[in-house]
């Protein structure tokens, strides 16, 4: 089916995400204005105006009442999803790179880049939504300084294990788990040799997939942090997501935005690739963008997905019936092994 082209942003897309129910699509862009769209019709429902810089990340809470946005203007803002009003602004000392709600939406965490003499920092805030925003503390509950050696930067963060641990990815290819009480590093693994662009989890947060500049995406087990699968491509991978109801992986990327102008769109490798989750084999591509795909999100019902690219467009794709009916390439019962 023809995708719906969501034209509303003026600059490259940095992040796209569905809400928990899958009826809203939130998008962040370098044009300062996070936007919410109808996930079924592609209609633009509203924008959240107030940021002074590129918006790098956003997160909507489980009940779709409050939205958090992280921006290069060194603030993290909380919005009322329905009215678009700004609830609260949390000032940081450097550009805010990522933001994530904690389970239960009573706290959230941000990562900020180093700026001037401020170091890179993970900050955890409390925000009991049932009390008035004025009563919240502007100061974070906990601040964790990121390792200064080698000047690594954090790229993403997620609360794990019932808010006991904070999962953070870095641009040197490593992942660290922090204790949310004392800020100590609980565990560290290095799945990639180059920058981890993105990480995404399945709905139950039992599996995660990392996408890296080293042209691979890797699937890990959340509990044991064990490597399960590797998906190899010929391009830097910007984002990868796990399908909720099929054993599939969607993967997007493309050449480094800097070298895009040197090749034709055909050769830029701007397609969304489909891989089989278990066999690690590629079985399909979806073309359309004319810039590298920066962000992917698949609807929780598994029937549609959205991709946002450097070209400033979001493409909202609805799967054909043939895809939805698609069976595993390997039949269940051994049919011919008897003879």
């Amino acid at each position, binding site marked *: 089916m023809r995708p719906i082209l969501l034209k509303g942003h003026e600059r490259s897309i940095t992040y796209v995400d569905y809400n928990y129910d899958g009826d809203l699509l939130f998008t962040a862009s370098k044009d300062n204005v996070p936007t919410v769209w109808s996930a079924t019709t592609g209609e633009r429902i509203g924008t959240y105006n107030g940021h002074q810089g590129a918006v790098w990340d956003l997160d909507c809470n*489980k009940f779709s009442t409050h939205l958090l946005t992280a921006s290069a203007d060194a603030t993290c803002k909380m919005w009322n999803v329905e009215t678009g009003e700004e609830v609260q602004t949390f000032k940081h000392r450097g550009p805010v790179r990522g933001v994530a709600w904690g389970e239960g939406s009573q706290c959230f965490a941000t990562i900020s880049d180093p700026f001037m003499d401020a170091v890179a920092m993970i900050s955890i805030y409390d925000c009991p939504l049932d009390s008035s925003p004025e009563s919240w503390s502007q100061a974070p509950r906990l601040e964790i300084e990121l390792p200064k050696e080698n000047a690594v930067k954090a790229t993403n963060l997620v609360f794990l294990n*019932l808010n006991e641990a904070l999962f953070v990815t870095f641009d040197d290819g490593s992942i660290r788990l922090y204790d949310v009480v004392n800020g100590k590093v609980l565990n560290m693994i290095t799945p990639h040799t180059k920058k981890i662009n993105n990480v995404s989890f399945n709905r139950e947060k039992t599996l995660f997939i990392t996408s890296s500049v080293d042209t691979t995406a890797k699937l890990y087990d959340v509990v044991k942090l064990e490597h399960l699968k590797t998906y190899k491509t010929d391009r830097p991978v910007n984002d990868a997501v796990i399908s909720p109801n099929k054993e599939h992986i969607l993967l997007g990327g493309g050449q480094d935005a800097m070298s895009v102008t040197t090749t*034709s769109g055909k*050769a830029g490798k701007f397609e969304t690739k489909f891989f089989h989750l278990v066999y690690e084999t590629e079985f399909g591509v979806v073309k359309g963008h004319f810039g590298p795909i920066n962000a992917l999100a698949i609807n929780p019902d598994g029937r549609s997905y959205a991709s946002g690219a450097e070209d400033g467009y979001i493409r909202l794709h609805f799967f054909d019936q043939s895809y939805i009916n698609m069976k595993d390439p390997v039949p269940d019962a051994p049919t011919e092994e008897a003879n």
Partner: protein
Amino acid sequence: MTNLPSDEYEDYMSDGELQYEVKQPKLIENFSTTVIIANLPQVPESKVEKLTSVLKKLTGKVGTLSTATPPLMPMNGDKTHGFSFITFVSSADATKCVEAINSYQFDKSHKLSVHGYDDVCGLRDVPEKYVEKTARPYVPQADVGAWLRDPGQRDAFCIRQGHETEVHWADGLRDPVIDYDGSREKAAGIQWCKDRMEWSPKGSFMATIIKQKGVILWGGEKYEKLGRFAHADVDHVSFSPNEGYIMTVSNKPDAVDAVKIHDIKTGKMIRAFKLYPSDKFREEDEERGEINPPQFSWSYNDEYIARMGEDLITIYELPSMKLLEKKSLLADGIKEFQWSPGANTLAYWSPEKGNSPAQVNLVAIPSRKLLRSKNLFQVNSVLMSWQDEGRFLGCKVLRHTKSKKTVYNNFELFRVMEEGVPVEMLDVKDAVFNFRWEPGGSRFAMVHAENAGATRMNVSFYDMDKTVKADEAGTKKKGKKLTEGQVLPELNLVTTLVDRQCSSLFWSPAGGVIVLASLGDSSSGSLEFYDVNQTITLAMREHYRATDVNWDPSGRMVSTSVCQPLNGAYFKFQMDNGYMLWSFQGKQLFIAAYENFYQFKWRPRKVVLSKEAVKEVETNIKKYEREFDRADKERAKALYLEETKGKRLQRKTFRDRVADLRAVYKSQKQQRIAMNGGYDSDDDSNFTTTIVKMTEIIDTKETVIDEFP
């Protein structure tokens, strides 16, 4: 002397006893400087002095005689023995003497026999009784033809990507599979091939080039090391067509052994040469700032190897590597020569010189008989190309008009196999960029365009043989009646394809099909698969930025690849590296992409069946088709079972893992519900429905319907 370092001059300053060593001349402990001259006239004592002085005069011309050991002439009674010992100052002179004076006609009845003293001494130690040598135990050699007996009738190719060198099998039906990837070397901590690799012409050997050390040959079922040929700074290798010999070349103009010829079976070097046959070529190259010396080339059956020199071609016999009949083949003004791929025939051309015209000559070796000579005028350059069986020789002659202002092309086509070697001419007004003979056929294709700067090309196909068509049958030609299907030796145009994107031509080794490709920097990598027999285009394809097109030896598949140079990759070559496989009809079979891709080489395979056997197969093609189809199906089935078995196991392991994880997730259910304020996110029925009534007033309009009366 105050600042002298004490330790260095300790001995110098010490008052100890003076120690010195008497310098004595080195004792020569062998007789390498002495030669024995035998077969001298036997003379009485009175004439010894005379004979000695004659001998001194003779040997003195070759080298400096030793004054310490004057010539010795032993006596046998009252007459001399008829031999003499001559000692030189250096052993080099002695060796030279043996070469120079041996077999010298001293006088009417005495032909000198000269030998080194050491060599003769060797004869003294020959045991009286002949002891039969015990044969060395037989060590079976690696079976270099094993790959030809592949049960799947597959073809092999080798790729160089990243640090890897991999040999794959491909059959055009399934994805290529790895045969060997240097795992044994990897386990030993060595990279199998760091530089380039080359196949031998029949595919028996694979040569890996190690720049600093030389060349290693690999072969047999397990790619064992079969030979190594030491050559520091080797730049390229060349196998003889029958794989008997290998030549290694390093581009060092000063080295005396820049070109080495080795015997593959014994592993020994049989002769070495300088890079340039004479200083003239070297000076010319230095002026141009390049290294492009005349290369040695092999005759088709490994009998000769030849190189161009100044106005001559030096031909060496193999394996002795002696100059054929001790003299070079004179070739006045020669610019380039080529061996015929089907006979020991040389073709060479020479440009115009003064009043003498440019010439293309065909010479038979070893008889040196001039088979054909063709004079040409107003020649800029000649490009010679043999048909692969040596049936035809095509010469693309670039000529200029008398005013030298415009150039045009003219083909001289030699029918080499026919009596008297008739030559046909073909004038082409257009600029010609490329021309290629059809392997095993009589056709050739050329790329031409109206002017040299054109971007859209025309491709023309010509046939050296004309098959008489039905409508021409019965007509007479040169007094002979023609019949349908008769083949006449007559050049004719098959077809011309106009307005094509094409820079290079690639004929299928099986003939009939050709790939027209536009390769190189500024082009798109378009590929046209064209069937010349039916004159139809089979497919139009594209491989963006492709640099290479290669047919597999059977003509089933074509590979296109984007390769980057091995030495110092440039930025523009770094993108889109990898290769694609296509069927000969242009169906895409396989794509592989790599970060760095250097080489794609099909393993060459010579047709071993005789022409009759090929004919036999062609007539019974139906029978073979069925056989192979059945084998293909069986293999596909086996492969499918194998794959699904592995995958099913993989899937089961993975699903079990996911189930375990879900159990962990479920065990946290109560805590999660508590955290979300009593909301159970796993319960799908756990939602509240709120009906929101919305009233939207689209438009309001007030109209007076009717005034109340």
